[in-house]
């Protein structure tokens, strides 16, 4: 059963030099206890896409499409109603736990705030719950740490605080936006472990945003590959890693030496050029300019997501059929 169902999401951001179409008709869904990874290079719209689900995106962004949660389209809900969903039903974890925490407030207080907002608890109950949550995410000396300020904690501890804040009200969906990017490799692994563990214990759905194929291989059940605001390939983790059909997905994977082991962060070394900035939706494949096999058909029509031979769904007119061997 799908907990969150995103249909045809588009986000248009006005800038000084005209507007940018950051997300262009993106659809995906995530089920209970499922971890969905949305992967892509920086600037491909993956972050803006998830922030816009609950109105946390850029100030004047125009968001269209449908975000279905618990039988309602969140995009049409009033700000007040949306606020009740935030933190309670759908929670976020952000990239840099240093800047994402208020430097002037003890971390325990910051977690308490979520509880005060959504749960009817007394002060003492909230405090007890914070300690419980801290212990759940593996913060040692929890009661004492709750009184610390963000600058007194290490990066990994701060991210644990962020996670405990996110899960405080037992959300059904956890959106983690590059949760490990700002952390050391060893700490990264620990944080991913915690996320998996929480998924198992609490049964939440997790939408994980990352540019790191290694992280995807580590934790995700399913993956959506984004390019220039669009989903270009989607499928189960096994299929995408074994038989990626889109040339771009292949390029992303070629930057990771061996699937399943995060030896290095994924970098697009194999693909010349950069992600284009899109002003409006075009009737063409946005990858065509960087693709070796692009032809007239690619440039004159937007390829739909369709079943590929390897079991993934791909938006490509000339999908790869061979099995990937890391090249």
């Amino acid at each position, binding site marked *: 059963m799908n907990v969150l169902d995103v249909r045809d999401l588009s986000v248009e951001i006005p*800038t000084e030099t005209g507007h940018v179409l950051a997300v262009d008709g993106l659809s995906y869904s995530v089920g209970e206890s499922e971890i969905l990874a949305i992967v892509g290079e920086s600037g491909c719209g993956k972050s803006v896409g998830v922030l816009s689900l609950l109105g946390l995106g850029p100030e004047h962004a125009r968001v269209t499409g449908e975000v279905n949660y618990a039988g309602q389209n969140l995009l049409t809900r009033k700000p007040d109603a949306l606020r009740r969903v935030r933190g309670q039903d759908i929670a976020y974890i952000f990239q840099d736990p240093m800047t994402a925490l208020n430097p002037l407030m003890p971390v325990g207080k910051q977690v308490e705030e979520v509880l005060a907002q959504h749960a009817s608890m007394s002060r003492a109950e909230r405090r007890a719950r914070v300690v419980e949550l801290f212990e759940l995410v593996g913060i040692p000396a929890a009661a004492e740490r709750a009184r610390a300020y963000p600058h007194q904690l290490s990066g990994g501890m701060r991210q644990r605080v962020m996670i405990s804040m996110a899960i405080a009200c037992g959300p059904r969906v956890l959106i983690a936006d590059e949760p490990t990017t700002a952390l050391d490799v060893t700490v990264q692994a620990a944080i991913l472990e915690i996320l998996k563990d929480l998924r198992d214990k609490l049964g939440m759905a997790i939408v994980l945003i990352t540019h790191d194929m290694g992280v995807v291989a580590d934790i995700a059940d399913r993956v959506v590959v984004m390019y220039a605001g669009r989903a270009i390939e989607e499928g189960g983790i096994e299929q995408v890693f074994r038989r990626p059909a889109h040339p771009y997905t292949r390029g992303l994977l070629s930057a990771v030496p061996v699937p399943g082991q995060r030896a290095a962060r994924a970098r697009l070394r194999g693909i010349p050029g950069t992600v284009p*900035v899109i002003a409006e939706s075009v009737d063409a494949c946005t990858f065509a300019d960087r693709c070796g096999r692009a032809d007239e058909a690619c440039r004159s029509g937007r390829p739909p997501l369709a079943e590929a031979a390897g079991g993934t769904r791909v938006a490509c007119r000339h999908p790869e059929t061979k099995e990937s061997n890391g090249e």
Partner: protein
Amino acid sequence: MTVTTAGTARPARSRARSTGALAVFRRALRSPAGLAGFVIAVVVVAAGLLAPWLSPMAPEATDYANPLSGPSGLHLLGTDELGRDQLSRVLYGINASVLVGLASVVLAALVGVPLGLVAGYFPKVDRVISQLVDVMLAFPNLILAVGLAAILGPSAMNAAIALAVGAVPGFVRLIRGEVLRLRGLDFVSSAIAAGNTHTRILWRHILPNATSTLLVQISVAIPHAILGEAMLSFLGLGIRPPTPSLGIMLAGAQQYIETAWWLAVFPGLAIVALTLAFNLFGDALRDALDPKGRRR
């Protein structure tokens, strides 16, 4: 096809802003407020500088037939207690304000910039200079200017000097900060590594990169100086009568405020126009240099 294949992934990052003084100046003129400020400043300053030609009458000429008369065809802005033409006096007053204001800022920059350069570059000298600056900052600006003006005696030049001294710490601190920032950058490190002399590094590598910031500081200091001159003259510590000065005119107007409102209103409006114009332009300059205003 509207796939704009920009050089980098994000438009905001690709458009690196030039921070050269000229580019900043041009950008400031592109904002409506900056342009308005610039135009008003040019008009008011020109009116002041051209006072000898624009004034309908000599500023000291008395018209005993019409003392304290309100605005009329003969005297557009009315006359004071001696029957002197207010419009002429306001124009000459602007002239004096602008000259004293500019002179004090130039003076402050001439003293403050070298001190700031040295302080930022040589840590040992910095201790002395920074302590001196601290002492100067121990006196509220106007108190310092009032004290100095009292020591030096009232005159336009002395008012400029007194105001300049008060403005020096601002320049020292700013330039010092810029030097400290620039020193850490690669091009300066490589210039040092290449064996350039200290003077050369300061003048050829560091100062040119600080000009925009300096420009902004100057644009902020000018309206301060103009207000300062008006205050000193108002207190009788600035320009000496009978030379027309907006501050002195306002001081004199206090006595007649119940009967001759025009004496109090017009010189004040002139100060406001002058200061506002420089403030508008200064703000635009600062925004042009640093769009988010994070430096201050």
